[in-house]
C-alpha cells in the first residue's frame, strides 16, 4: 500500500497535478511517528507491568487493543495527510488489512510460540519452554495419525459428494416443473447448523432403539442397525451427515455452471448423433471441469475443518474411528487442557494443509490445461 498508483483508466489529471506541500508531509509524518511511539510506550509499560518490573500499568491488556485502534486511525489519517489523493485510495484497503493482521498474523505467530511450550492448564507449574518436544511427541501419537488417516477418507469422500451433487444439478437443470420449489428444498440442509444436524440426524434419526432410520434399516433386513458402533459404519454415518449438509453447496455451484453453458454445443453433439451418455461424458463434463475443480477445492478446504458433527455425535469414537484432526485437538484442549501440545498439533496440521493445497492447486491447474 505504500505506493498506490491509480489504475491507468481512472487516472485523474487533478491527482497528478496535486502536489503535497513539504510542510504538510512532515506534519503528517510527525503525527504518525508520535502516536506510534506513544503506543509502543504503552505496550512497553504493560509488558513491564505484567513482568512485575514496575507497578504502573493496567489491570488487563484491553488498553493495548484501544491503543492499536487509535494507532490504526492515526495511521490512516496520516496516509491522507501525507499522500493526499493516493492516501484516500489506500484508505479503502487499510481497514481490512489492519484488521486481518491484528486477528490472524499476530495470533498465528503467538500460536507458533505456544506450540513450543510445555503448557498444561491443569498442572500447577506454568508454561515453560521445551523447544521441539511437542513436534517430536506428535510423531509417536498414534491417535493423531489415526485422525490424519481419517481425514484422508473424509477428503476422498468429497468425490462421492461431488457425484451426487452433479446428479442433482443435472436433475434441476432438466426441463421440470416446480424447479423453484425443488431448488429451495435442496438448498435447505445447507442452512442448518451442524450442531443441530448432529442432534436431528445423528442422535435422533439414527438412534439405535427407535430412530426412524434404524427402524427402516431393520425393515430392510439389517438386524443390528448400530450406526456408530463399528468403525467403518460410524465413519460412513458421519460422512453421510456432513454430505447432507454440504451437497447443496456443490450442487448450486455446478448448477450455475450448467446454466452458463452454451446450449449450441450440446445441440451440436445431438445433431452429430451422440447418445446422452456420450454428450455428457465428452462434451458436458469437460466443459464443466473448471467449475468442478473450483468447487472441489473450496469443498476440500471446508472439509479439512470438519469438527462440529464429530464432536457432537461420536466425540471421535468408537476408538477414534471417526476422529478428525480438529475434533481430536478439541479434545486435547477440552479434556486434557494440554494447551502447548494441542497448539503444536494444530500448527503441524496447518503446515500439512498448506502443503497439500499447494500441490492440489498445481496439479489441478496442470490437469485442466491438459484437458482443455
Amino acid at each position, binding site marked *: 500500500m505504500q*505506493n*498506490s*498508483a*491509480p*489504475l491507468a*483508466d*481512472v487516472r485523474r489529471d487533478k491527482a497528478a497535478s496535486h502536489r503535497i506541500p513539504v510542510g504538510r508531509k512532515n506534519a503528517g509524518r510527525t503525527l504518525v511517528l508520535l502516536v506510534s511511539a506513544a503506543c509502543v510506550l504503552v505496550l512497553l509499560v504493560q509488558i513491564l507491568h505484567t513482568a512485575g518490573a514496575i507497578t504502573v500499568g493496567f489491570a*488487563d491488556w*484491553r488498553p493495548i*487493543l484501544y491503543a492499536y485502534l487509535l494507532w490504526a486511525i492515526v495511521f490512516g489519517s496520516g496516509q491522507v495527510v501525507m499522500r493526499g489523493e493516493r492516501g*484516500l485510495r489506500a484508505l*479503502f*484497503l487499510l*481497514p*481490512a*488489512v489492519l*484488521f*486481518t493482521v491484528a486477528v490472524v498474523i499476530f495470533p*498465528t505467530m503467538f500460536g507458533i510460540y*505456544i506450540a513450543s511450550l510445555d503448557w498444561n492448564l491443569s498442572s500447577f507449574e506454568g508454561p515453560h519452554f521445551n523447544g521441539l518436544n511437542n513436534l517430536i511427541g506428535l510423531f509417536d501419537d498414534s491417535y493423531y495419525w489415526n485422525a490424519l488417516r481419517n481425514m484422508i477418507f473424509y477428503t476422498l469422500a468429497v468425490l462421492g459428494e461431488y457425484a451426487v451433487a452433479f446428479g*442433482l444439478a443435472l*436433475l434441476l437443470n432438466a426441463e*421440470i416443473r416446480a424447479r423453484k420449489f425443488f*431448488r*429451495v428444498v435442496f438448498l*435447505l*440442509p*445447507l*442452512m*442448518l*447448523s*451442524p*450442531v*443441530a*444436524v448432529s*442432534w*436431528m*440426524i445423528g*442422535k*435422533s434419526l439414527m438412534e439405535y432403539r427407535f430412530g*426412524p432410520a434404524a427402524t427402516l434399516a431393520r425393515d430392510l433386513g439389517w438386524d443390528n442397525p448400530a450406526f456408530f458402533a463399528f468403525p467403518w459404519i460410524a465413519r460412513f454415518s458421519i460422512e453421510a451427515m456432513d454430505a*447432507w449438509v454440504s451437497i447443496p*453447496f456443490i450442487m*448450486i455451484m455446478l448448477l*450455475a455452471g450448467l446454466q452458463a453453458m452454451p446450449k449450441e454445443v450440446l445441440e451440436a453433439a445431438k445433431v452429430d448423433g451422440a447418445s446422452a451418455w456420450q454428450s455428457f461424458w465428452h462434451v458436458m463434463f469437460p466443459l464443466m471441469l473448471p467449475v468442478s475443480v*473450483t468447487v472441489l477445492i473450496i469443498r476440500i478446504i471446508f472439509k479439512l*475443518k470438519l*469438527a*462440529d458433527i464429530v*464432536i457432537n455425535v461420536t466425540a471421535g469414537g468408537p476408538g477414534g474411528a471417526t476422529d478428525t*484432526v*480438529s475434533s481430536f485437538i*478439541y479434545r486435547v*484442549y477440552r479434556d486434557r487442557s494440554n494447551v502447548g501440545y*494441542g*497448539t503444536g498439533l*494444530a500448527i503441524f*496440521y*496447518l503446515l500439512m494443509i498448506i502443503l497439500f*493445497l499447494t500441490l492440489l492447486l498445481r496439479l489441478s491447474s496442470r490437469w485442466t490445461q491438459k484437458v482443455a
Partner: protein
Amino acid sequence: MAIFTAASQPVRKSHASVRATRILSRVLIYGALLFWAFVCLFPIYWTVTTSFKSALDVTQGHLVPWLDFQPDWKGWRSLGLSPDSILGTSTARAEFMSRFGNSIITSVGASVLALVLGSLAAYGLSRFRYKFAWMRNDDILFFFMSQLILPPVVLALPFLVLYKALALLDTRLGLILLYTLTVLPIVIWIMRDQFNAIPIELDEAAFVDGLSVWGAFIRIILPLAVPGMVAAFILSLVLCWNEYFFAALLTSTDAKTLPVMVASQTGSQGINWWSMAALSTAAIAPLVIVGIFLERYIVSGLTTGAGK
C-alpha cells in the same frame, strides 16, 4: 422396455420407443427429485414433529400428527414457549432468549463489520492498483483469501490466551471479531466480483461531476452494489449463526450462542427428546425461513465466479 417394443413392432419402432423412453425418463427424473426432496425434508419434519410428541410417541416411532399421535406442546412447554406457559416466568425461556439474543447480536454484528471492511477492500482492489512491498493487487487478494484455509483449531488456542489477557473471553465483542475474520474472505470475494461488474465509466463520470473518490464510492457505486451486499450479508449471517467451534471454546456463561446451548443439552440429563427437538427447531427456524424467502440471494452469493 424400449428394446422389446422395437423388436415386436419394427414399423412403429421409432415412434413408440421414443415415447416410451421419454415417459421413462420423466418418471425417473421426478422420482429422483422427489426422493431427494424427501431426504432433505424428512429430518426437518421429524425434528419439528418430535417437539410435539410425548415419550411414548417417540419410542413407538409415530410419524404423522393427529393420525398417529395427538400433538401436544410438551417440548415447547419445557422451553417456556408454549401458549400456556409463555406468559409465566420460566428460567428455561430466559436462558433460551439470552442465547438467542447472543446469536443474533454476534452474527449480525460480525456480518455488518465484515461487510463494511470487505466492501471497502473489495472496491479498492477492483478499482485501484496497490503496491505493498512485493505484493500487488492479486497478491493482496490472495492474502485475504488464504485466511479461508486456516482451520479454527489453529486460532482457537492463541485466541483463548489472548482474549483472557484482553478481557474479551466470554464476551460478544470477542466472538464478533473472530466471526468477522472467518467471513471476511468470502465477503471480499463476492463484493469484488460485484464491483468488477459495475462499469468503471460510472466512476469517471462521478469524478467529472466533481465528486471525490469516496464521494463517488458512497453516492454512486455503493447503491448499485446492493444486491451483492445482500448476498454477502446473508451468507455471512448463515455462517456466523451456525458457528460452533469458537463459541464452544471461548464462551462459558454470558456470551454462549445457540449452537453451544444445543450441544450442551445433548450431553447432560440423558436425552430429553421433546425439549431437544423444540430447541433444535428454534435454532434452525430462523435460517430455514431465510433459506425459503431469500434463496435467490444465497444462490447468487454462492455462485459468485462459478459461471465463468
